[in-house]
């Protein structure tokens, strides 16, 4: 790894569509990551935290009853078992260590489902950093347990009241905070989105998911999976799961977006599936939900983590280049898979990966070996799901 520059573009996608005020900070961040990722001491410290503190490697679990239901072998990569309950901690620990290395003691984060906010608040508590988390007011309502966790961890949670009051607005407000406090603050973006070099950094920090899973499934099955399936909001767990397999031409990569109330309803969070003209949101060019004037549309999903009108630029390129396929699963389908997984496996998945599980269970395929990234656990969703199920 001797590159002097991280990926800024993925095909035509990506870039740095941000105010000039942030450009020097993005250059500083890129230089810091290029140096940190080849620094043995940094990597040893990150490796130690991921192993001893967070619980990596996570297990690869043969889900026998889900397999029986699907008629093919299904393995789950158990990111739900990691500290704080989702893959977000991989990125948050890495970027928080990077902030320390850059001498920045104040952390800004945004959160949708609350998992990235909790992961950031956790890393900040551990490393003695100040933490401010922006969260849409609607998400604060539907993910209340995570708000309480962040506050217990010492973070300040700021409610964002603009627009649909979900993840898009939270990211915008986090970027505005960063523009204002860039001298002493680092923005830990939670997904594989944002201006370069963020999508590349988040991918580097999340690729442990796929690297581990690839070795684990080779050990267990003696072969690679036919499909790797992961849910996609911004797309960090998916890019983390896919990256190790991108060079394995026979492994199909499938990203599952939120179809919400159905793609045709217009109320969904599936820009990669729905197609259309790419656009600029939150600093990068990618697949995007927008109107003819370029105004960003509101996304909709039952799952706060997928309720986002944009998508990571590398996913848009994986789609266009034909390397990965993107599909979408509705709110009702995800709810059904949430319940089914709990009953068949004794695992309560987050609503986000429940989308991926539904796809594997119900969409016919010739595959006989699937690997699904179970990106997080569903405790945070319980109250909302029970309400929706009328219980």
């Amino acid at each position, binding site marked *: 790894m001797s590159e002097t520059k991280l990926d800024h573009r993925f095909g035509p996608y990506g*870039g*740095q*569509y*941000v*105010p*000039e*005020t*942030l*450009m*020097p*900070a993005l250059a500083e961040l890129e230089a810091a990551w290029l140096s940190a990722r080849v620094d043995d001491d940094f990597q040893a410290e990150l490796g130690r935290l991921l192993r001893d503190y967070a619980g990596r490697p996570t297990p690869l679990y043969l889900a026998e009853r889900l397999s029986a239901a699907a008629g093919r072998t299904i393995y789950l990569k158990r990111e739900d078992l990691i500290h704080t309950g989702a893959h977000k901690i991989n990125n948050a620990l890495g970027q928080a260590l990077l902030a320390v290395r850059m001498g920045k003691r104040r952390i800004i984060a945004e959160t949708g489902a609350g998992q990235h906010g909790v992961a950031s608040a956790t890393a900040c508590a551990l490393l003695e950093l100040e933490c401010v988390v922006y969260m849409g007011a609607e998400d604060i309502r539907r993910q209340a347990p995570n708000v309480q966790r962040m506050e217990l961890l010492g973070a300040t949670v700021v409610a964002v009241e*603009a*627009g649909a009051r979900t993840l*898009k607005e939270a990211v*915008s407000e986090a*970027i*505005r905070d960063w*523009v*204002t*406090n*860039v*001298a002493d603050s680092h923005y830990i973006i939670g997904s594989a989105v944002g201006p370069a070099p963020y999508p590349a950094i988040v991918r580097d920090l999340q690729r442990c998911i796929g690297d581990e899973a690839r070795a684990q499934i080779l050990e267990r099955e003696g072969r690679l999976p036919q499909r790797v399936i992961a849910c996609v909001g911004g797309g960090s767990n998916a890019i983390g799961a896919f990256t190790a397999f991108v060079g394995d031409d026979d492994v199909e990569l499938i990203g599952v977006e939120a179809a919400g109330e159905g793609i045709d309803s217009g109320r969904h969070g599936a820009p990669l599936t729905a197609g259309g*003209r790419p*656009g*600029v*949101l*939150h*600093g990068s*060019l990618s697949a*995007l939900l*927008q109107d*003819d*004037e*370029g*105004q*960003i549309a509101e996304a909709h999903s039952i799952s706060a983590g997928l309720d986002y009108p944009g998508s990571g630029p590398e996913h848009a390129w994986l789609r266009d280049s034909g390397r990965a396929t993107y599909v979408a699963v509705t709110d009702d389908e995800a709810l059904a898979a949430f319940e089914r997984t709990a009953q068949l496996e004794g695992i309560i998945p987050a609503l986000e990966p429940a989308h991926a599980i539904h796809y594997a269970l119900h969409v016919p395929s010739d595959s006989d070996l699937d690997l699904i990234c179970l990106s997080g656990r569903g405790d945070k969703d319980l109250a909302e799901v029970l309400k929706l199920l009328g219980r």
Partner: protein
Amino acid sequence: MMNGAERIAAAFSGRKGRAALMPYLMGGFPDIETSLGIGNAYVEGGADLIELGVPFSDPLADGPVIQSAGSAALAAGATLDLVLGVAGELSARLPIVLMCYSNAILARGTDRFVDEIAAAGVSGLIVPDLPLEEAPATSKSCAAAGVAFVGLAAPTSTDQRLAAIGAATQGFLYTVAVAGTTGERGDDSDYGEVIARVRSHTSAPVALGFGISTPEQASAAAGAGADGVIIGSRLVREAAEADQPPAACKTLVEQFARALR
């Protein structure tokens, strides 16, 4: 007939030693007709140029006042074409510099967008989320259409970046006074350092914006050597709060104009 860059240059050079006053107008806020009325009030109040904002759903560089005005304008039915209608009326009276986020430009198609704003009489274009590295296509279209592509400099910009931005800018250099988003700021204003630093890297007029919200601050900016002063959120707030936005904004612009004499 002068092209956009020449018209802007004339507006700066014609001010006879005082700083040019560039009030910001949110196109379509509170509605299209009233925004045109406010623009005309800016002209009558003593503006030298007008910065005309195209409302956008997710304006990353803007603070709460301009954000909510943009949302309100969109809710009231503002579109790019309607805002360009306002530009067309106002450009007969003063040079218009359009402020537009990059996705609205991409949505129309860059070349077509630039041709249409040129046809509406717009003299210059500011894109707050299009730094130098991403700007070549837009800048080239603007050059071909005679529209000044106005660069932005920030207090955080390195000397190397300032040199490149200062060399590339057309019309004037939009200088961001403080790290942050648009919005009124009450702090004591020491603009001398940022202006001196930027001026050493450009031959274009230096216009200062972001946070200048009182006539005293405007006067301080001019005293510190700014060739132009941009007033945004204070005026947009007036448009939001006043019973008669055009009359109230005219009074306010007159106060800023007096402070710059």
